[in-house]
């Protein structure tokens, strides 16, 4: 049984994961990503760098292109212009599933759960996808059931996201908030090096959001997972991220530490101005 902190057979950098100095190759680098939906420019030349074990927030009003940006990085959209580099290596030609195998996991804004499975089964599917040990011949010899290691792994993730007591509930019977946790757990079961969370706190109450924020901090500290997070809840953003990038109408309009960005008049006009 390998150490749970390293997935994908690649060891994490040996030095402390918190330091991400300039000369080091960043974990994720998106270079001027543009997406065109039938004449509408959904993203225009957006660039973004996420260092190893860094935590970055992507904020902006609805329709700013945040989810589209996620879809480009994960490969759900493959018709973008620009370049996505993962650990210094271009991954633009890879389909979504190959990118996932590199260690990019995500959650979805409009939840995407497997309706007919229980919570535990979600984790087991993810564990199996990560280990890549499933094979047809094993299935045919009735060796395809969940292994002890997979069950233990699932148990650990369930505990981490606080779903242990719902482990055997079918997701169809869960509320939206719990489904978000299922998605998060499923993503974490992949033991990713980069986690993209798309509005993880929507549908959760303040207490649950606080729990989620501490969960993100823990995952980052313990596993060295880099986190890119789209979030409207600025309290949560403040707690989780090192810095933010602000998008509006597909353009990057500001970037930097949260306090500075909030003070930026351009951002106030585009984003906060609409809330106030």
């Amino acid at each position: 049984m390998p150490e749970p902190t390293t997935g994908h057979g690649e060891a994490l950098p040996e030095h402390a994961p918190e330091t991400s100095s300039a000369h080091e190759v960043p974990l994720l680098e998106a270079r001027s990503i543009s997406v065109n939906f039938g004449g509408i420019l959904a993203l225009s030349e957006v660039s973004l760098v996420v260092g190893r074990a860094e935590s970055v927030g992507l904020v902006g009003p609805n329709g700013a292109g945040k989810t589209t940006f996620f879809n480009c990085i994960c490969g759900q959209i493959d018709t973008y212009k620009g370049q996505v580099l993962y650990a210094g290596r271009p991954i633009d030609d890879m389909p979504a599933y190959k990118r996932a195998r590199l260690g990019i996991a995500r959650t979805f804004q409009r939840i995407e759960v497997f309706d007919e499975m229980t919570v535990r089964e979600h984790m087991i599917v993810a564990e199996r996808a990560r280990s890549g040990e499933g094979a047809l011949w094993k299935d045919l010899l009735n060796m395809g059931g969940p292994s002890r290691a997979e069950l233990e792994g699932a148990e650990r993730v369930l505990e981490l996201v606080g779903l242990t007591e719902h482990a055997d509930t079918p997701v169809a019977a869960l509320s939206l908030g719990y489904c978000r946790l299922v998605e998060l757990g499923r993503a974490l079961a992949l033991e990713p090096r980069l986690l993209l969370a798309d509005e993880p706190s929507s549908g959760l109450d303040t207490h649950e959001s606080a729990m989620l924020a501490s969960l993100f901090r823990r995952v980052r500290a313990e596993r060295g997972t880099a986190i890119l997070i789209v979030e409207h809840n600025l309290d949560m953003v403040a707690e989780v991220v090192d810095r933010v990038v602000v998008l509006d109408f597909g353009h990057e309009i500001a970037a930097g530490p949260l306090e500075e960005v909030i003070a930026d008049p351009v951002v106030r006009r585009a984003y906060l101005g609409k809330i106030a």
Partner: protein
Amino acid sequence: MAVGLVLTYRATGVFNLAFGAQAFTAAFAYDLLNQYQHWPQWAAFVVSVIVISPALGLAFDRFLFRHIPTASTTVKVISSLGLLIAIPQLIPIIFGSEQRHKIGYLWLNPATVYFHLGSTPINGQDISTTVITVVAVLALVAVFRWSTIGLEMRAVVESRRLSQLQGVNSSAVAAGAWALSSALAGLSGVLLLPAQNSLDPTAPLEFTTLLVAGMTAAALASMRSISIAAIGGVAIGVLENLLHNYLPAGSILSTGVLPSLPFALLVIVLLANPNLRRIEESSDPLSSVDPPPPPPSIAIRDRRLDFPMRWGFRALVVAFLISNLTWVPLNWVFVFQQGLFYSLIFLSVTLITGMSGQLSLCQATFVGIGAFTAGQLAVHHGFPVLLGALVGGALAAVVGTAVALLVSRVSGLLLTLVTLAFALFADNVLFQFSWSGGGLTGLVLPRPQIGPLNFASDRSYLVLGLVVLLLFTFLVRFVQRGTTGRFLAAMRGSPTAAASLGINLTRAKVTVFMLSAGLAGLGGALYASSQGPVGPNDFNYVFSLAFVVIVITTGSRSVEGAVQAGMAYVILTQILTYLPSRVTGLQFVLFAFGALTYAAHPEGIVEYQKSQWLRRTSRLLRAWDDRRSARAPEAAQEAAGA
């Protein structure tokens, strides 16, 4: 026809496979009234096209599709599949099953040649078809452009909910679209009537070329533009006629390539038209207000039931075996034996439709490939039948893989249509060659023999069938519980999320297609060996449709469902042979109506009943537990008191 398909799809989201059935119904009614009741043409036309057809469409809408506007495309396809199977089978039940050789025509006599275009004689059929089609299409375009109802239809197509908010009665407009498209179906049926040699109520699905051409034109129009559909339909007809007339007769081009052209064209259009890729994505901005489709009820079994159920199952198998070896009359042994092989074939549907959620309409083709391979090898090359069956299964698996690779980038409705095109191609072209389907005489397969064991008698072959079926039941279950099954379940739940976990969807899909086709091929070969003689038309696409409908009715999610489907099908068929000949199609009608419940219970009727039963028993068990634990302290007190 294409126009009607597009119209229904756009207005109601239903890809109406029952279109051919509607056309047949109208044609039959017209012929009956005009030729047998000696009504004038106009009266027969009014009744069949203007009254009966729209009434049928309205009935579809009122009793079925109105209740499932938010269901997925697959659910709607299955519903229309049920209708396609059921409606024509009802006709012989109502009107008797005699063939009708007197064929009516609309407007001008097809036997009269009116003038020559170049060297081509133009007969009454050509003129009336052309003129009536052009008039109908122009009228439709005018309605859509300038009338209020046309505008409303276009609005309902964009968003049912939004147009309701604008004060449009969406349901009524959808009903109108159904009536209109059904009238078109009726019209095309009546127009094509003279092209038929005879009307056989028991083989009603002979509007195949019509279906293929219609589907191609509709696909060409991206299921969207009515005028492109109309022009495309005409162009395809013209093209086929031209090729038919100008290719040298008797060459390989005209015997092999030409008949397959319509199917190849359909597949190319389906796969190459980029606009079709997105047809299932809802563009309705208010689509999220609709409630999600019902989740299948999940059978949660009390652990204490494991033991009795397992032994119950074993007892059932043993009882089945002993009964069939001793007291069951031979003709019923044969029935049960066939049931076993049908179950094996139906397991392949469980694999593909139940596990991956994809609707494949070419399972009977794989069955045929297996059967004919085993037959050819056994009859002409002296192979043992069982070896031939294995080769047949392997060949079917290879073909299945090829089909899967072809459709690997599409899913849902497109995949269903491509598999349907493949099935049509197989039974119109591939199986007609004497080197595959055995030609007019067919093939007569022997029963297998392993060393000294001879399975020639029905009782002994039943034992072999039972062993094979049990083996594959367990294998399919293992696959279902293993990695493949889990990944497929994930894909069924959400393809996007499955890919985001690193699951290779293409590979999962190809794997399940391969397994399913191989199993169907093997089952087909064993079935053919049970049957003895098989011919080119024994595995036509109607069976593919029927297989899916039957399995879905009992339950496509579990191996029990497939076995129950196989047994129920043969038993019902056998019982019906005791009844008058006009009801021989009744089992299809029953199953087809069963499939209509798919929208409400995607797990199938039998599975639904089972989960209800399990729920009730576990509730009883729990109540019993509660009572016992409540009584336990009392008992303890009594003991202490004593």
